[in-house]
């Protein structure tokens, strides 16, 4: 008698399970990102942006009558986890398109997997050039490192009148090394001198040795293309060593945690970013208003804005397809032109990169003060 009950239950649960995985009425989109780990705020911010975009689309009836369902996987900010979760998204969950990652090193790991399986992938904010070179299914909605390096070199020489610069790069990190190389080259082209170029190791906490070296060379600016936790600690140690210098960086600085780690030591320094919360354009104002309403009055950082734009561009391409297949989505993504996003007007070029301008902002407590815009 009991075994009959058990069988009934078993088939019932099978029925429930199979109805859950029925794919006709939803469009599955996969997202992988660092929801925990050293760069956790990147993944969390991006995820918030993406979720908000899809919820907006779903509340307006979805795409071709279908709702978008987002499946998010955490790669813990680790390279070795990334391949695992991306493979799972593609082969097990059978997603139609992928969104991710912020860190270029991890996008580069995921890109070949997406390419091999014919799944279009949009990176919201991986700025290293190699990412989209991995194949014709890989797109991005942010600008590239060479451009960011150029922006900061130009800003240092023209706005800050810097003559001598030092570079502190994170060893073995695609993003950091790429930005550092371009900045050094461009700074020299603008007539400046790079007086020191040193590196630190992932997980390092003591940067005083490198900074002491810099102190002796008396640079006007130190370019630190790292992520926010490292940068916060570096800023603190710059202050402890009493070095009078302006710190410059890239979009890797953009996190609410930058100030938590760096405290007042980070104030007054500059970094290049994707958008500014001080913008008055209606779409940005609307985005910030909705984001604050949804997420407990939190001001969206650049990564949330890019996550939002990436999701919206994907949805836009999906609407334009005849029937929803990964191949068609890819083709329509490649045709994206003058898409009005929060982070600017986005056109995808034939290298599948977004062409857009960057802003330079100054850190002022938790605020990012808008300084200037640099167009490509």
């Amino acid at each position, binding site marked *: 008698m009991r075994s009959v009950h058990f069988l009934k239950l078993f088939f019932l649960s099978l029925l429930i399970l199979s109805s859950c995985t029925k794919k006709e009425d939803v469009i599955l989109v996969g997202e992988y990102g660092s929801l925990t780990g050293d760069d956790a705020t990147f993944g969390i911010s991006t995820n918030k942006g993406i979720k908000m975009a899809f919820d907006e689309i779903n509340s307006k009836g979805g795409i071709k009558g279908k709702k978008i369902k987002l499946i998010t996987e955490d790669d813990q900010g680790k390279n070795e986890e990334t391949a695992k979760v991306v493979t799972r998204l593609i082969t097990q969950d059978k997603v139609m398109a992928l969104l991710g990652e912020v860190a270029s090193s991890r996008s580069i790991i995921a890109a070949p997997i997406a390419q091999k399986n014919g799944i279009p992938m949009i990176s919201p904010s991986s700025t290293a050039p190699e990412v989209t070179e991995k194949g014709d299914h890989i797109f991005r909605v942010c600008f590239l490192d060479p451009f960011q390096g150029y922006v900061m070199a130009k800003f240092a020489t023209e706005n800050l009148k810097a003559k001598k610069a030092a570079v502190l790069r994170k060893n073995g990190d695609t993003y950091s090394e790429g930005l550092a190389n371009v900045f050094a080259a461009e700074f020299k082209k603008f007539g400046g001198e790079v007086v020191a170029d040193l590196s630190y190791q992932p997980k390092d906490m003591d940067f005083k040795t490198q900074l*002491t070296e810099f102190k002796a060379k008396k640079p006007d600016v130190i370019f630190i293309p790292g992520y926010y936790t490292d940068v916060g600690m570096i800023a603190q140690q710059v202050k402890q060593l009493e070095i009078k210098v302006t710190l410059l960086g890239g979009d890797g600085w953009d996190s609410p945690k930058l100030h938590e780690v760096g405290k007042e030591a980070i104030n007054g320094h500059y970094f290049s970013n994707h958008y500014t919360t001080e913008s008055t354009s209606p779409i940005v104002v609307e985005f910030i208003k909705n984001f604050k309403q949804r997420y407990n009055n939190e001001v969206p950082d650049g990564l949330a804005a890019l996550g939002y734009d990436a999701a919206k561009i994907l949805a836009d391409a999906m609407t334009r397809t005849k029937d929803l297949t990964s191949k068609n989505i890819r083709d329509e993504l490649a045709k994206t032109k003058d898409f009005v996003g929060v982070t600017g007007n986005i056109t995808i070029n034939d290298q599948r990169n977004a062409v857009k301008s960057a802003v330079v902002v100054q850190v002022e407590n938790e605020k990012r003060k808008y300084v200037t815009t640099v167009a490509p």
Partner: protein
Amino acid sequence: MEEIIQHFINGLSIGSIYSLIALGYTMVYGILQMINFAHSEVYMMGAFFAYYSAKFLNLEKSPSYSTLIIILVITMILCSLLALTIEKFAYRPLRKQPKLNVLITAIGVSLFLQYFAQIIFGADPKVFPNLINNQLLFEVGGVSINTFDVTILGVSLLSMLGLHFLVYHTKMGQGMRAVSHNPAVASILGINVNRTIALTFIAGSSLAGIGSVLVGIKYQKIEPLMGTMIGLKAFVAAVLGGIGSIAGAVVGGLVLGISEVLVVVYGSSQYRDALAFGILIFILLFKPAGIFGKNTIEKV
């Protein structure tokens, strides 16, 4: 010149933290002849104990030396309890077994704690509260000395002196030395071996707890995997000084800290970790007993 002094101070400050943790390795080795690889995780847990106790007692808004002392004491107690638990459940049952079994267990405990901490505390880094205010104390020839540097050096020096007093000038210390010499004979002479071993774990893990609070103050960032590298470095420092020797652990830590700084200055940061393990291989090849160790002849 000014740079060299600054480098020296930086090296001393990181080196003294290596020393504090190296002492834990050396003491346990001295008594049990085993490498307690879980020691670096006791250090990591110490940082989280300090973090949560500061939050729980609401001390993060009132940085002062009394705050620092309260947190230090709490962390030392909790770290000791953790180490005693590990000793009781993982090492004591294996005490009569071959040393290799205990070593493998230690590695297992270490990995267990790493992943346990990731589940409990989350894998993302936490920002350590300000326990003391950092101010510029004085400047000598362009070298700035601030409260953090002085506190870290002062606290580590005091704890090392405390340990020295415990081991060489107390009855308990005498017992520890006796057990490390020959546990069987020591127990015949009426020394409670279990209690002595427990005391060793308490002393070693308290120092690890102090080290973790100092690192928290200095670098502000704590995370569940923070023990791995610093633990390996401290282990190298202990071997360099001569494992089992207390003076050796202190000197080994300082030598390693300062030479790492010099490698970054005159070489590159890529070589820094390689240096530590280069030293380890070199020492094991040419002077296996370390700087302060005595060569012993193994009877076959």
